[in-house]
């Protein structure tokens, strides 16, 4: 287990050493989103009765930042290690593929939570949303980040160059997170887009997380949890099969 703990520690230390880029930058970005959108829309939009638009937006932004950063952590660490060749330092020691996967995912969850907490703290200057169900809130934060951390492992193993990883990030992760109800309730969408949104797993992460704050959501939090959990199990199983086979790592 010592090898696993060390890999986890190394992954945590790695993002912490460049925290300007890995923590502060996404917090500032989320803050800018909040300032602009709440300034433009606060007077015009009320999504849930009694909940101001700024308060509605905060959980969405927190979750979006967590998800994007969890993905970025595992995927960028792996692609950098592969391209610079230092992945051998992790492949030579007696670390099992399960330990390898778990360490990268947990580090991704940790970065997601740190960034999420950072975004939440700075947005408190605008308004403090209520916390209706702390359990759901924490469960969705951890599990949502874990799904994206696992997806990051998958992308990091698959990509051979930064360009491919950027494609994964820009053409899959960004649309999924932006079109998931961060800035709106999906019930405000036309029927076609409403139906389509229900195929987006990120929607369930954000909706469930928002339920933790307001106690209201577009779909039931249990259904959201089931979808997120299902995604995590499926992605983890896929990653573990690839790692067990040594796909792109052990030739």
């Amino acid at each position, binding site marked *: 287990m*010592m*090898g696993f*703990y*060390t*890999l986890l*520690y*190394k992954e945590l*230390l*790695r993002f912490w*050493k*460049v925290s300007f880029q890995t923590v502060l930058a996404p917090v500032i970005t989320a803050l800018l989103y909040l300032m602009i959108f709440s300034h433009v829309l606060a007077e015009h939009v009320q999504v849930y009765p009694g909940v101001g638009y700024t308060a509605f937006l905060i959980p969405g932004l927190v979750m979006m930042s967590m998800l994007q950063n969890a993905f970025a952590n595992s995927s960028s660490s792996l692609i950098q*290690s592969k391209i*610079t*060749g*230092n992945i*051998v*330092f*992790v*492949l*030579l*020691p*007696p*670390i*099992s593929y399960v330990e390898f996967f778990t360490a990268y995912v947990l580090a991704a969850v940790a970065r997601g939570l740190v960034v999420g907490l950072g975004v939440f703290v700075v947005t408190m200057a605008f308004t403090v949303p209520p916390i209706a169900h702390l359990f759901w809130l924490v469960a969705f934060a951890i599990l949502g980040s874990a799904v994206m951390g696992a997806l990051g492992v998958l992308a990091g193993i698959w990509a051979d160059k930064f360009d491919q990883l950027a494609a994964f990030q820009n053409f899959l992760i960004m649309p999924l997170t932006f079109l998931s109800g961060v800035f709106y309730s999906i019930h405000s969408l036309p029927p076609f887009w409403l139906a389509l949104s229900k195929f987006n797993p990120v929607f369930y992460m954000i909706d469930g997380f928002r339920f933790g704050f307001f106690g209201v959501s577009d779909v039931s939090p249990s259904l959201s949890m089931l979808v997120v959990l299902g995604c995590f199990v499926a992605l983890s199983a896929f990653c573990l099969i690839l790692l067990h086979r*040594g796909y792109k790592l*052990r*030739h």
Partner: protein
Amino acid sequence: MTSAIKIEQLHKHFGSLHALKGVSLDIAQGEFFALLGPNGAGKTTLISILAGLARADSGTVEVMGHNVVTDYRAARRLLGVVPQELAYDPFFTVRENLQIQSGYFGMRHNNDWIDEIMTNLGLMDKANTNMRALSGGMKRRVLVAQALVHRPPVIVLDEPTAGVDVSLRTSLWAFVRGLNQSGHTIILTTHYLEEAEALCNRVAILNQGEIVALDTTAELLKSSGELKLKIQIKPNQLPLGLSSYVVKQSDNDYSLLIHKPAEIEHILAQLRMAGITIVDMALTKPDLEDVFLQMTSPL
């Protein structure tokens, strides 16, 4: 006694390329072993399979009796590998890198040994320097240190002196020789054949995925011939009858391997008959490079 490395009937394909064609090799504990071969011979593939970085199509590899696939944890703990590529982790200092590497191998509180390795490899001054700020030679030293951090009894050095200056090469070999004398098994691949000749007690030559020579360094040197005749001739056209002796040719210099001194007279007679003048001539003992060229020549 258990072999340090035992390889049996190892096959590996990369697409249509048959990179290893049934390689078998037994390296005893305490040996200083050279694995030589031209580029693309399969040396790095063999080492990668040994280290678990690649998987064989068939055959088995054991490190100190532990199968590298079915008992990989024990096998990897007993093996230290200095990879050929100059890889480093740019996020950490030299000491952090070595501490992290210790942890990967399950070792806590390893600072005394880390200090000892760093002192021996001349890294103490750079202990708290970020890896990015190190020169190529220093990065190479850290790679060696990383391979030794878990005190492996078997150490593989894959071209450790490529692109390294003379002073580091000398100090590195003194250090590795010391490790070998204290009981570590060393397996070395290098392009500097004089290094292998000076350090290794046994040599395997790999060519196109097959072992073409495997013997003690002394026996290999004997097998190639007793003497090497180096000649410079004018005009620069060696008679056809002498081409079987040639082991190396560059411009108008020819190196000919011969088994007994009497053959020299035969060679000189052939040159005289062809009307060729000898511009320069030297008689030396053959070295490992000659053996290597003989064994790996396409003819």
